């Protein structure tokens, strides 16, 4: 116990600040990826619900493939594959050598497209539990699509989707650990670095768990508030 205090306190030899910096990276890459995934998810859910056959087919392909393949593959493709794609483009513009996405962007992109598939499923499920009549009432009163979406559909869907989105956020948060192959120092990578330095893997992975738990508890508070807000008027 005392030993871990000196390990994670704030002295010069302490791993506390490093772990906190890593935690900030985790939150940043997860939040950016979650936001990207959320936007994608809304689009894809919408395509699945209201699209014509080819659009629905595409959307189904997307959610099936991205949920089905290992996340690490997506990250590899984003991180290593982006070079293959970007280098020729950059060289056309006169750049030299290799050009590819920085770790953070590659991670954010990978998390975004993967979590987009999960977002889409959650949102789709939530949409089906909204009463049609309430949406029809908005159409009947002459709301244009976007307005209806923003003022009526979104809040009603949010009410049902929030618990599921909470799950997706938790998933994304932890998926960020895989981003370390890109060299981004997030919590799990920092734990690995610390454990190899001190040769105390268990202590570091335990600390990583505590950090993750803290982040989830804090974000859980936000989700609870949102849930409360969107459940107003519920029978």
């Amino acid at each position, binding site marked *: 116990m005392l030993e871990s205090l000196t390990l994670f306190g704030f002295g010069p030899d302490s791993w506390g600040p490093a772990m906190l910096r890593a935690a900030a990276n985790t939150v940043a890459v997860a939040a950016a990826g979650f936001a990207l995934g959320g936007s994608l998810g809304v689009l894809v859910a919408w395509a699945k619900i209201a699209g*014509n*056959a080819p659009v629905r087919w595409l959307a189904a392909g997307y959610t099936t493939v991205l949920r089905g393949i290992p996340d690490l593959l997506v990250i590899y493709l984003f991180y290593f594959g982006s070079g293959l794609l970007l280098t020729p483009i950059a060289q056309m513009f006169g750049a030299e050598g290799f050009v590819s996405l920085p770790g953070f962007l590659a991670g954010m992109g990978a998390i975004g497209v993967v979590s987009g598939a999960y977002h889409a499923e959650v949102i789709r499920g939530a949409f089906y539990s909204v*009463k049609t*009549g*309430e949406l*029809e*009432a*908005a*159409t*009947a*009163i*002459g*709301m*244009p*699509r976007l*307005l209806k979406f923003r*003022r*009526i559909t979104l*809040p*009603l869907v949010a*009410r049902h989707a929030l618990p599921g989105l909470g799950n997706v956020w938790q998933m994304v948060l932890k998926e960020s650990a895989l981003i370390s192959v890109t060299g981004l120092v997030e919590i799990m990578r920092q734990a690995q670095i610390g454990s190899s330095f001190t040769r105390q893997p268990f202590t570091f992975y335990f600390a990583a768990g505590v950090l993750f738990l803290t982040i989830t508890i804090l974000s859980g508070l936000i989700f609870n508030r949102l849930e409360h807000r*969107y459940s*107003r*008027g*519920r*029978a």
Partner: protein
Amino acid sequence: MTPPAQPDPALPPAVSVRGLRKRYGKLEVLKGINFDAHRGEVVSILGSSGSGKSTLLRCINMLEIPEAGTVTVDGTEIALVTRRDGGRRPADPRAMDQLRARIGMVFQDFNLWSHKTVLGNVIEAPTHVQKRPRAECIAEARALLDKVGIADKADQYPSRLSGGQQQRAAIARALAMNPAVMLFDEPTSALDPELVGEVLRVIRALAEEGRTMLIVTHEVSFARDISDTVVFMNDGVIEESGPPEEVFAAGNNTRLARFVEG
């Protein structure tokens, strides 16, 4: 009882329906409906349960797209285009929305927005569709809620209201847009006789302002009191239509007579 302002047949009809057909799967619900409603005219639609009355109202503002036929509102036909899969859709969604904003609708099952209070339900469309100043909308909404007798429920959520209160909130919501045409689907079903009288008075006042009204109702006496025209639907077609005195004249049509007798 004073008769409502006379509709003016010189103008084009406010709502004109021609050859409307709608089916759900194998079930043909509307089998070619034709009728006109003139400006300021109150049309009651009667008919047995399942005869397609709600479906007709829903087709008029294109909540359901009819397979065939046209709907013309205020001289403009609602243009539909045929999709590749054979279904149809509104040709110009923007124009469709603008039109819908001028057609108020009170649903049979109210469909109040559950995430908004009663007041929120009423001011939603005026503030966001018509983009009028919020304070003005609130003042008007409160007046409307007062008129339908639920001013004290303005800040409640719909799930906390009794059936009749929900119905009145739905009426207030439709009126708040100040629509030229109103579609009422059984607007008095959950109301007590006192309130039915109240709604009757409101509808009459609206008709005098020149608003056109299509009212689905089961209450023969209500229809008799309020309508310029009564339409009797049966099995997907209009079987009878005309001024109430004529339509309700005994022996006119056995099906209708049986219907009215109960």
